[in-house]
């Protein structure tokens, strides 16, 4: 294949700094846990030192508690899984009273994923969470309100919030206005033009975007002649969707340089995380992998640190949005030109099998 990549000089593990910046939000590491895959954090206390996380995003919170969908709610597919949990959650009040105090103590970046069932309840939820957090914890409570406008389970209007730029713009603006806490909008991949969506929420004052939520999918039980999911469709997550997530992160990073992006979708290794950073994410979240490997976030953090040392990348900022183009092939001609361009000194070979 044509040429090899840029040369890199390994550095020592201790020289690697994982501190990351996500717009106004400082993170001690770019590795966070994703919404819906980490509950409200407590369960993971048994498996790892939560303080080593960059942060975590809670299960999506709505103004009132919600019960979930009928079963079955999940099904495994090739390198991925479908879920239709139904945004079950304890509601704003119980979250603030019972869950936030534990999270506020941790000292990691607390992202609270939230949603409403219509325009008003979205705004109400943002206001309640922002006010409740400031009242009880000052600056030390919720760091980011991650607004989920990508939920396929909300009947009325839900789809439009996530797929029509103007609607998303209005909603974001209204929530930003009532919240003292930065609002990051979590976008759905189920759109023709993710850049238009990101641009719309950016113009509305969003502090950044989270990319991507699950892709709507389905599986069929041919013996029972039914969908594998009671609500027919579910959201696809896991390694299967990583290429789609990376593409969307890259599209938005190219179109809106500097606008903070939190990347996610199928990350299970430090190398995966670095792919997202290089494509343009400022930090990443781990979702599905937490189910099979509750300590995954720390393993991935270690792997990322090791890989950065190997590749001589000192700081996270030195990785973000740093992809290079391929060298241009010599122009095509019927036969090799007599005066072939001087062979340029070739870059160091990267590890290749041959």
């Amino acid at each position, binding site marked *: 294949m044509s040429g090899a990549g840029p040369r890199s000089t390994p550095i020592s593990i201790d020289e690697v700094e994982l501190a990351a910046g996500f717009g106004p939000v400082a993170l001690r590491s770019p590795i966070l846990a994703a919404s819906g895959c980490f509950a409200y954090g407590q*369960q993971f206390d*048994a498996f790892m030192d939560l303080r080593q996380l960059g942060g975590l995003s809670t299960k999506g919170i709505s103004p009132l508690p919600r019960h979930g969908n009928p079963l079955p*709610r999940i*099904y495994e597919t090739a390198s991925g899984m479908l879920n239709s*949990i139904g945004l079950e959650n304890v509601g704003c009040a119980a979250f603030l009273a019972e869950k936030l105090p534990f999270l506020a103590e941790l000292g990691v970046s607390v992202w609270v994923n939230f949603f409403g069932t219509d325009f008003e309840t979205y705004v109400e939820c943002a206001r309640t969470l922002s006010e409740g957090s400031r009242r009880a914890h000052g600056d030390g409570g919720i760091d980011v309100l991650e607004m989920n406008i990508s939920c396929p389970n909300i009947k009325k209007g839900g789809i439009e919030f996530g797929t029509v730029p103007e609607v998303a713009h209005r909603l974001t603006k209204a929530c930003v206005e009532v919240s003292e806490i930065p609002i990051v909008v979590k976008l759905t991949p189920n759109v023709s033009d993710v850049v238009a969506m990101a641009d719309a929420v950016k113009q509305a004052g969003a502090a950044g975007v989270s990319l991507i939520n699950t892709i709507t999918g389905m599986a069929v039980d041919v013996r029972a002649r039914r969908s594998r999911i009671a609500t027919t469709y579910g959201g696809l997550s896991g*390694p299967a969707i990583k290429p789609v997530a990376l593409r969307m992160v890259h599209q938005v990073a190219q179109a809106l340089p500097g606008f903070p992006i939190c990347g996610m979708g199928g990350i299970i290794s430090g190398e995966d995380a670095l792919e997202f950073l290089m494509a343009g994410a400022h930090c990443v979240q781990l979702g599905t*992998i*937490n189910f099979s490997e*509750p*300590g995954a976030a720390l393993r991935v953090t270690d792997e990322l640190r090791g890989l950065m040392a190997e590749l001589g990348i000192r700081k996270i900022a030195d990785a973000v949005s740093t992809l290079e183009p391929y060298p241009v092939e010599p122009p095509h001609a019927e036969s090799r030109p007599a005066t072939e361009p001087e062979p340029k000194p070739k870059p160091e070979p990267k590890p290749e099998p041959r």
Partner: protein
Amino acid sequence: MDGGFRIAYDSRVATAQFQVEVAVKRPLTGGYFVLELASDGANPVADAAPGQFVMLRGDWGRDLLNGRAFSVLEPIDSRRFSVLFKVFGRGTALMRDMTPGDPMTVTGPLGHGFPQPRPAGPTQILVAGGVGLPPLHLQARLAAAAATSASVEMFYGGRGAEDLVLTEDLERWGVPTVLATEDGSRGEQGRVTAPVRARLERAAAAGEAVELLACGPTPMLRAVRELGLAHEVPTYLCLEEMMACGFGVCLGCAVPVYGPKPYKYCCTDGPVFEAREVRW
């Protein structure tokens, strides 16, 4: 190189994730296997109660994402435990092909098990079918070890004789056992619920206090539930739902229940539920 994923965490609390190796894979009749797993250090599965389970995962790459749930068959000692399985789909097919020394990752023990046999308590009628045997096999083992075996009786059903495994253990422990096969090749002919019904009627006639503890295919559990409700005896069902995590975070394993909320969770609230509670 693109990652497969493996981990090695120390167990920090009773429920943890830890590494084991396949120590023994023992084929039984009917396509069943006993898989004995061993960890380097002491592991918390040693204290597992009947009905508790583990999430198991081999070094299987990215396609099979989640662990698979298996009831603990025997907590052998501080380092070893075993499970019973039968090939069902891709994960269990990979387990069939494993050989001693192969690494696996275990999360557990998870969930809440059956009510313990109480020395002077009601007679526990254990109803087992298929891969639902392990919790009841372990319940019988503990009852026998506590020399209260008189208080448990096993009713164990299958399609044919080859589906009834590990019955020699029950014999050795002196647990009264009724076997039933649909093809009549061993024990009574028919479903196991028929002798259970007869037993309940006998108990009712004698005014004897009994409890039902069942684990097996969903249709069997539905039948046991109805028997228990009809005879108004305490009935505990060990349920099985699709699980991604096993420790209460994915909310995938919902069980419809009566109560303040419409759903409980098989992994953390169960897998053992009271029959009256289950909204079936």
